[in-house]
């Protein structure tokens, strides 16, 4: 009796069903975490807004050149730092791949401009990509990419600030670019490249409202000291915002990818069930014709 192909199909159906369960679970987990990730993004925004407002207030009232806001013309090093923010885990469709691809494009462009690229990677996927290819990573963080903490972002920001403020012969960099993913909505996440340092534009500079003139600010202890305290915090909050945005994007990408995978698994199961039924029917037909022809042979003997 030929039950071989039937058994193979049944096996495939079973394993596909097991996979489908896993995809479904991943999809549900991602879906339930997106809400939390977006709430965290919303919770962090008052801080970011307060800092931005303060920075623009200082920028509007003083004319101090701060090392973080000026191009390093005197101590030009020709080095540019690139921070690539990806995810720790896969199963998120093209999420990590597209961030890394965008990073490669940026690195290519910086090299074409004659700059030496200093690479930083956040998230295990990016770290694995670069270390597999034997590329040197100056800094790497795997920080739990779907729920970043402010401590993790502080660590990253401090390392980058240190590199930016370091003297030229100790590995200082001229500029810092960040490659990350922007959460637009549940179906659209966009990879983007932001030049973080030196700081250039400060969004939402406060306009004089009902007052005719800008209020004169008192700075304690001094405008320089205030700027010194503000700007690193501003960078930290920007990096934190990037990480949070990337986390929401990662989860959305994962949910979508897992939803598609579940659908595909269902399709496969349907196809295999049809094939298995066909094989069973063929087996039965064959058996009947064997019996009939056997009986015929006996009758005619």
């Amino acid at each position, binding site marked *: 009796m030929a039950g071989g192909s039937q058994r193979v199909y049944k096996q495939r159906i079973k394993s596909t069903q097991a996979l489908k369960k896993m995809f479904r679970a991943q999809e549900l987990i991602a879906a339930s975490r997106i809400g939390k990730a977006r709430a965290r993004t919303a919770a962090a925004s008052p801080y970011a807004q*307060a800092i931005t407002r303060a920075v623009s207030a200082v920028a509007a009232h003083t004319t101090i050149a701060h090392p973080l806001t000026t191009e390093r013309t005197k101590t030009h090093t020709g080095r540019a730092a690139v921070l690539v923010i990806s995810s720790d885990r896969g199963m998120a469709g093209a999420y990590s791949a597209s961030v890394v691809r965008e990073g490669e494009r940026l690195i290519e462009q910086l090299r074409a401009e004659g700059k030496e690229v200093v690479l930083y990677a956040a998230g295990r996927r990016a770290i694995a990509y670069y270390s597999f290819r034997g590329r040197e990573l100056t800094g790497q963080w795997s920080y739990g990419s779907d729920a970043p903490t402010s401590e993790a972002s502080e660590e990253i920001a401090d390392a980058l600030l240190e590199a930016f403020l370091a003297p030229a012969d100790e590995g200082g960099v001229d500029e810092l670019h960040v490659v990350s993913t922007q959460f637009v909505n549940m179906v659209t996440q966009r990879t983007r490249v932001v030049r973080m340092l030196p700081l250039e534009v400060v969004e939402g500079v406060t306009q004089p409202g009902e007052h005719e003139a800008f209020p004169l600010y*008192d700075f304690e*202890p001094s405008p320089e*000291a205030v700027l010194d305290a503000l700007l690193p915090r501003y960078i930290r909050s920007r990096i934190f915002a990037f990480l949070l945005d990337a986390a929401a994007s990662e989860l959305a990408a994962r949910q979508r990818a897992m939803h598609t995978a579940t659908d595909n698994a269902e399709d496969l199961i349907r196809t295999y069930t049809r094939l298995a039924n066909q094989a069973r029917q063929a087996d039965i037909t064959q058996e009947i014709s064997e019996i009939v022809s056997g009986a015929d042979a006996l009758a005619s003997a």
Partner: protein
Amino acid sequence: MAELNVDLVSTDRKVWSGTAVSVSAPSVDGQIGILANHSPLLAVLRPGTLTVTAASGPAVTAEVTGGFVSVDDNLVTLVVDEITALR
């Protein structure tokens, strides 16, 4: 009487928000008190104790590790790095 609108925010959340009569914050030059119609100010904070005397309800007190405070047009924004639970 004019009141202060106070926002107290830390890195990952808004801690407290509301109207207040006065705010006392640990600036690097010493504890500063802020009342309504204070002149615009931007001050760096050192580790210390922060007190917000709310317009209604109990005063809010907390330990902070650093940050800054900005005052502009009776809008007080306290931005702190780390903050203990409110008391």
